[in-house]
């Protein structure tokens, strides 16, 4: 059931194939590391365009971004649903801004972060705070009369990706 909802994520065809490349190199080396960078910024009840105006961002059409959420990296485009590990500080329906963006590709350029492309951010909405598939842990040592069965259900958060935005 769950997989059906996300199957389009894996099967989507890339519309961004036909484009020339330019690399934007950042001249200065930043000292921020991913571990010390802050958690996703939470924005309460603000429209995407309102946020963009307030903080002087512009949306980039036809682009993809590589974002770092909850210790994992995801390649996302607008409208994607991604299932991440549980983000503990957010609630369903909330609007957040993912600020750890590692790479942004548009139709005519690619920006590579070192390690973060700091002028880029990605809007996201919390769709669901759910659980992912149950794991049965069965340990067994043969000839030693040792059997242990426990289970584990990882907690998950489903994010819907909005616009990818750039600082003016």
């Amino acid at each position, binding site marked *: 059931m769950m997989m059906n909802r996300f199957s389009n994520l894996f099967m989507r065809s890339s519309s961004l194939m036909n484009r020339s490349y330019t*690399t934007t190199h950042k001249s200065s080396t930043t000292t921020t590391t*991913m571990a010390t960078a802050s958690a996703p910024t939470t924005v309460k009840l603000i429209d995407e365009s309102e946020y963009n105006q307030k903080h002087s961002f512009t949306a980039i059409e036809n682009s993809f971004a590589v974002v770092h959420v909850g210790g994992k990296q995801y390649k996302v485009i607008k409208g994607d649903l991604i299932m991440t590990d549980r983000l503990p500080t957010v609630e369903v329906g909330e609007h957040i801004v993912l600020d750890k963006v590692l790479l942004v590709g548009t139709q005519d350029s*690619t920006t*590579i972060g*070192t*390690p973060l492309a700091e002028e880029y951010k990605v809007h996201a909405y919390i769709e669901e705070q759910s659980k992912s598939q149950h794991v049965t842990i069965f340990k067994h040592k043969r000839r030693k009369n040792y059997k242990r*069965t426990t289970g584990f259900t990882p907690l998950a958060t489903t994010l819907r990706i909005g616009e990818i935005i750039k600082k003016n």
Partner: protein
Amino acid sequence: MNIDKIFKLAKGYFGRSKNCKSLARERVEKGLEYNYVSRRLKKRDFRAQWIQRINAGTRQHGLNYSDFMRGLISSDCQINRKILSELAVTEPFSFKALTVQAKDQLSKLHFKTYIPKEDIINPTPQVKAGIETPTLKQK
């Protein structure tokens, strides 16, 4: 484990393994053991596959995997192998940009190391017993 759960997991097994209590228990327990191991193997296998894909992608641009990663790591690009392999497959132009970035960085590095060229006094290192010993500037 509860026998009902055992039979639930034994659905589709061959022969009497799906119907007999004792056989079903044996098969299911062995299966769950493999499951435990495979969850760990999965991480290794996928990493190996990603590396193969990145290697195939970078060789199209005249770089091998190890040089490509050396270039990216020394330029502090922290994109992981999962994403790099995905980019190699689906985003040829972005991947080319990454190889350009790696090549750019490699041209600033000494031979096969992470040491910047400008930190080295003798650019052609002496080879002693098969080990290169570049002399570094004192900082």
